[in-house]
C-alpha cells in the first residue's frame, strides 16, 4: 500500500511560497520516495530550483516515514535549521504534511498533490484498488472493487458505457464489470452478479473516520 502523489505544478508551488524567503524542505523516505516525488533526489532538486529563484534554504530532511509520530523526533534534530526558516515545504503526501504541521509552529506548505492509496504493479506503475469505503464487497466481485474500479462506482453491474471491455470515459481503462464478469464466470460463480447490492451506507464510519483499538 502506498500513498500516491504527484508534484504540484512548479508555478503553484512558487505561488504558495510567495512571501516566504527562508525555507526548510521535508521529504519522505517511504511512499514519496517510491513515487519519486519526495525522495532525497527530488528534495535536492527542489532545493536547487528554489535557490535559483533567490530563496534561502536553511536545510532539508528526508524523514523515514513522514506520517509516523516519529516525525517529531526528526524535526527536533533539525531544530536549528527549521528555526532559521519562515516556512516548511513538505514533499510528502498529505498525511505527512499534516503530521509535520502538528509539530511545527510555522506555515507548512505541500509541494505534492495526494492522488490515491494504491498498489504498484511494476516499478513506477501505480493503480488504485480500494476506496476505503468501510463496507467491503470484493468477496462477491472476484476481488475487484467496483466502487473503485468502475468510474461511476456501480455495484449492480455495468452501465451502458461499457465498450468491448473498456470504459467509455477512458479507452485505456478496463470496464470493471467486464473484469468481474470474466473472473466470476471462470470461477463458476456468475450467480453472484445477479445479487442485488443495496445503496451504499455512507455513514458506516462518518467522516472524519477514526478507530481506537482497546
Amino acid at each position, binding site marked *: 500500500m502506498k500513498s500516491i502523489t504527484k508534484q504540484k505544478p512548479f508555478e503553484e508551488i512558487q505561488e504558495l511560497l510567495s512571501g516566504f524567503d527562508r525555507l526548510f524542505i521535508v521529504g519522505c523516505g517511504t511512499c514519496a520516495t517510491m513515487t519519486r516525488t519526495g525522495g532525497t533526489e527530488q528534495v535536492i532538486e527542489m532545493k536547487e530550483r528554489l535557490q535559483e529563484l533567490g530563496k534561502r534554504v536553511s536545510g532539508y530532511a528526508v524523514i523515514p516515514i513522514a506520517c509516523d509520530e516519529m516525525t517529531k523526533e526528526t524535526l527536533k534534530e533539525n531544530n536549528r535549521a527549521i528555526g532559521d526558516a519562515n516556512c516548511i515545504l513538505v514533499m510528502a503526501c498529505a498525511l505527512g504534511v499534516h503530521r509535520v504541521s502538528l509539530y511545527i509552529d510555522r506555515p507548512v506548505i505541500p509541494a505534492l498533490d495526494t492522488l490515491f492509496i494504491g498498489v504498484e504493479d511494476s516499478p513506477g506503475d501505480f493503480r488504485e484498488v480500494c476506496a476505503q469505503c468501510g463496507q467491503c464487497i470484493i468477496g462477491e466481485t472476484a476481488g475487484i472493487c467496483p466502487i473503485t474500479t468502475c*468510474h*461511476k*462506482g*456501480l*455495484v*449492480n*453491474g*455495468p*452501465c*451502458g*458505457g*461499457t*465498450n*468491448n*471491455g473498456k470504459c*467509455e*470515459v477512458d479507452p485505456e481503462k478496463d470496464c470493471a*464489470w*467486464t473484469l468481474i*464478469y470474466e473472473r466470476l*464466470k471462470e470461477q463458476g460463480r*456468475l450467480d453472484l*452478479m*445477479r445479487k*442485488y447490492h*443495496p*445503496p*451504499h451506507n*455512507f455513514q458506516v464510519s462518518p467522516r472524519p473516520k477514526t478507530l481506537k483499538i482497546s
Partner: protein
Amino acid sequence: MTSSFKEALDSGKFVVTSEIAPPKGTNLETMLHHIELLKDRVDALNVTDHQSSVMRFPSIGGCLAIKEHGGEPILQMTCRDRNRMSLQAELLLAYTRGIRNVLCLTGDAVPVGDHKEAKGVFDLDSVQLLKAVHILESGQDMGGSELDGAVEFCAGAIVTPEANPIEPQLIKFEKKIEAGAVFFQTQAVYDMDNFAKFMQYARQFPVKILAGIVLLSSARMARYMTENVPGIFVPQNLIDELSDAPKGEVLAKGIEIAGRMIATLKRNSICDGVHIMAIGREEVVPDILAAAGL
C-alpha cells in the same frame, strides 16, 4: 389519474414513444414547438436529463411543459447529479404534478459532458433507483419513514442489446426487472436479426420492450456512432445506403431507413413498440412515422 402510457403498453398495441431535449437556457420556444408537434403523434414523450452530461433546463421542467400542453411525459432520471434524497424528492414533486412515468438511468459519466470538473454523484445506480420508486409507492421513503401521500409510477429502464460482452448486460436487465421495471427502451438498434435474437430471450420476461430507433442523418454520423458510441452497431449495408443517396436526399434516406426498421418490427411483432430518438431533428419525427406507415 393513471398513466395513459401504461394503458397503451397494457393494451397490446404497437406503442410509439419519442423524446425531446430541453434547451440550454431559458428560451423554451423550440422545445414547446416539438411538444406541440409530437404530443398527439406518440403515446408518450421522454424528456432527457442533461443528456451526455451537458447541463440543460431540467427534465422535470420539460415534463411539466408536456403536461401543460396535454401530452404524456416520461421523466428521465439519472443518478449522476442527485443523491437519494434529491431523487426521492423529485419523484414526489413529479407525482403531484401528474407525471406518471419514470425512466430510471444510471446517467452518462461526467467527463463526457460540458462540466468536466463536476462531481458525479451516483449515490444510487439505476437498479437501486427502480427499487426506490417502489419503496415510495409502498408509502415509505428510503430512510424507512412513512410518507404523507405516496406515489405511483410506471417505471422503466434501458437495455443495450448490442453490448459486448452481452451477458453482464442481460444479467443487469434481469436485475432491473426484479427491481420493478415494467418497460424498457433500448439503446439504438440497427441489426434487426440481432435484435430479434435479443427479443427471443427477452420475451420470457413480463415486460414491454420498445426498440430504440435513432435517426441516421448521414453516412458520417452512422460511421461515427458505430465506431465511437458504446453499444451501437450500424451494419455496413445501412452506411452504404446513406453514402449512395444523392446529395440533398441523405436525410430522406435516413428517414426511410428508420421508417423501414419500425415497419419491420411492427409487421413481424418483434417487440412491443419503438422509441424514436431524432437527436436534434425532432421536426422529422412525423416523417419517420409516415415512412413507417404509422
